[in-house]
């Protein structure tokens, strides 16, 4: 039987205070040092000489890298560099490869300058010192390969007038909407079957990777270049994850339900799948991060207090549309009503003639497809890697628990709050631990309102 207890009133006050204190302490230690982050080893922009390759003449190049949220080095692919000579004539340009390496061969020794095309930087990266772009007065001796360094990171001089809070709110909204799209499935599956599906994050990864394979790896062009566009990739990803959801339900969860496996056992099975799939993906695709083609270029649109990249605006609008559509479908269509009915009270739904198995199947398909779509969007804003979904899963949990486990609208609301919170928490927390904030909120919300914002108290007896 489920262990239930909802009334937080029964909780001794001192316990809550104690816990609050512990959490606050942890938070404090985490604040320890945004200052530290600045004493990064890689000094300023600069150049260094490297031993010439055999037979090579002169060239300029470098490795472009950033640190991700966890302080790991990430090599950036597809960043464009333009090299011009002393007379401002373009000598050549190059994109960094998967290892972050780029190189432009030079016509001869001389003085050159290098421009990093800022728009080609993947989302979330910016030059630490934009004034040093382009890098000028690089003198190249005969038979040398010159290396340049463009440090990325927090902008030290805030030359624009965007308001940090407004900017973070927009970023948070974007993240929240993505979490919401992914989390609806998680919440609906929980609502209709009682399963806390720990492998839901892998659907997100699979979605993102499917689109990546179409968009980058294969670059198909049998019937024209649209075949390798990201839009087509996203459509394939949705179809594929939806299909996987169907297969998953049909061959794993349905048999388990019929067998009468306990929910604890089912939960452990879902964890098993999470690990298995994650490491199969790692095995298959390696640990490196990938980015979608195109889609990183574009002038930010300036709204005064914040600016936004075109693709981000697209993500926000599109996600909102998808969510409204899902909401309407749940509210208006027969299938949607049936889903809510089953989530609300399975027996009642069954006795009033709803085919519960059919509804569950639909929930798996739709939920997985939405997760796949969410994965593509998440991949657009951050990098694509084997454990992106698992990381997102924890944020989904935060959102879903915040909103109320099992309620579709709760998942929506909670996810958006979680997204906003994560981004806004960087006002106080260093960026590399910003997710900690959301998870701490998850813990705190359980203390005060365990059933979540839109959740309902459970019954006993």
């Amino acid at each position, binding site marked *: 039987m489920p262990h239930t207890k909802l009334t937080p009133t029964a909780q001794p006050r001192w316990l809550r205070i104690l816990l609050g204190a512990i959490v606050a302490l942890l938070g404090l230690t985490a604040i320890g040092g945004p200052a530290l982050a600045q004493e990064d080893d890689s000094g300023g922009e600069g150049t260094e000489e490297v031993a010439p390759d055999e037979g090579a003449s002169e060239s300029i190049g470098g490795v472009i890298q950033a640190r991700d949220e966890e302080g790991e080095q990430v090599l950036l692919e597809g960043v464009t560099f333009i090299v011009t000579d002393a007379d401002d004539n373009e000598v050549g340009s190059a994109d960094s490869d998967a290892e972050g390496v780029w190189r432009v061969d030079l016509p001869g020794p001389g003085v050159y300058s290098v421009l990093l095309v800022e728009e080609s930087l993947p989302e979330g990266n910016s030059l630490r010192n934009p004034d040093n772009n382009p890098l000028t007065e690089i003198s190249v001796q005969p038979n040398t390969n010159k290396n340049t360094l463009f440090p990325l990171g927090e902008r030290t001089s805030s030359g624009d007038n965007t308001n940090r809070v407004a900017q973070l709110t927009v970023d948070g909204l974007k993240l929240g909407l993505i979490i919401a799209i992914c989390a609806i499935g998680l919440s609906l599956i929980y609502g209709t079957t009682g399963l806390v599906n720990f492998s839901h994050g892998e659907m997100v990864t699979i979605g993102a990777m499917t689109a990546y394979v179409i968009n980058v790896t294969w670059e198909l062009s049998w019937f024209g270049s649209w075949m390798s566009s990201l839009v087509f990739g996203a459509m394939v990803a949705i179809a594929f994850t939806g299909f996987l959801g169907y297969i998953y339900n049909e061959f794993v969860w349905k048999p388990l339900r019929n067998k009468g496996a306990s929910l604890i056992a089912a939960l452990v099975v879902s964890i098993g799948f999470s690990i298995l799939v994650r490491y199969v993906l790692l095995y298959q695709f390696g640990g490196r991060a990938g980015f979608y083609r195109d889609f990183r270029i574009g002038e930010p649109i300036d709204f005064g207090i914040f600016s936004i990249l075109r693709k981000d605006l697209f993500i926000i609008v599109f996600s909102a549309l998808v969510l409204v559509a899902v909401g309407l479908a749940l509210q208006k269509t027969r299938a949607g009503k049936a889903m809510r009915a089953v989530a609300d009270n*399975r027996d009642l739904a069954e006795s009033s003639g709803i085919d519960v198995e059919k509804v569950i199947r639909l929930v798996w398909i739709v939920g997985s497809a939405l997760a796949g779509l969410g994965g593509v969007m998440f991949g657009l804003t951050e990098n694509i890697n084997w454990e992106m979904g698992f990381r997102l899963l924890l944020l989904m949990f935060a959102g879903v628990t915040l909103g109320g486990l099992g309620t579709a609208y709760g998942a929506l609301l909670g996810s958006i709050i979680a997204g906003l919170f994560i981004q806004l928490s960087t006002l106080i927390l260093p960026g590399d631990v910003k997710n900690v904030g959301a998870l701490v909120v998850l813990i705190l919300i359980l203390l005060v309102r365990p059933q979540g914002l839109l959740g309902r108290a459970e019954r*006993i007896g």
Partner: protein
Amino acid sequence: MTDNSPREDDYPAMNETFDRASPFADDAGVKAGPRPDISDEEADAAFAEVVTVDGVDPVAARAALADVPWEPGAPKPDPILVADGVVRRFGGLTAVDVDHVEIQRGVITALIGPNGAGKTTLFNLLTNFDTPDAGTRVFNDKNIDNVAAHNIAGHGMVRTFQLTKALSKMTVIENMKLGATGQKGESLFRSIFPFMWRKQEKEIEERADDLLIHFKMDHMRDQFAGTLSGGQRKLLEMARALMVEPEMVMLDEPMAGVNPALTQSLLGHVTGLRDQGMTVLFVEHDMDMVQEISDWVIVMAEGQIIAEGPPASIGENTAVVDAYLGSHHDSALDLDQEL
């Protein structure tokens, strides 16, 4: 009776599976019968030894009910439990809204009402398994509003559940021993020093065995509780509750789903408890049984108490008849059966 509990739905497989997996499930009716080779005298003697509530004269307590007016919230001469202004809302639904109710000590009180009337919720509120939005509860002249649910047993009140809660992967005797309160070995520190709790454990085991004999379940002593039939589980749950040595037991539908032969012996056990001075409050849908054993009946509908009185008075009460016929979705209701 069905209970449209949302939580149960989340764990859909669990109720059925067990029966299917259990080798004993099919012959539940046969196995559920009382054990023939113990005479009633032996069983009763064992019982009297274990269950007694001091200072209560059940006959006098029953007689005193004669003067109580037949109206909702009627004051009792010697109430053991008093609830005042207890309200519980779930969203927009007011599941319980009881102005005032008193339970007479030393008698059997039946709590009846249509499905969804709020009986189980009231049980939860009286035993602090659920917290009311408003109201006070007094047990044995002590206010229990802020007593944690697990401390209620220590105050002398123990409840059973509508959905039987046998502890499946523990044996029957372990189930019973769990009911004992005050076992010193239940503290983490003392647990690793068996000499500190061995003796007490032995006494508890003897008491448990006596009770099992009384309930004629001693032959299943070392069986896993999960292998018992539904009726046997109800019996076990009741016996286990008695291990607490309570003054009052609250039984939520103890007879539901139990075959007629076993029902009779269950009824016998309940009156037996009263005759030892125990106060019994029980929920039941079958009016025959209510008529047969209860001394007083409280009727709930839509969260409120709509009638009180001795069993015979209830059938004629128009408010009660309205409540059953009016609130029930199935129009054809057989009054004899269900009320």
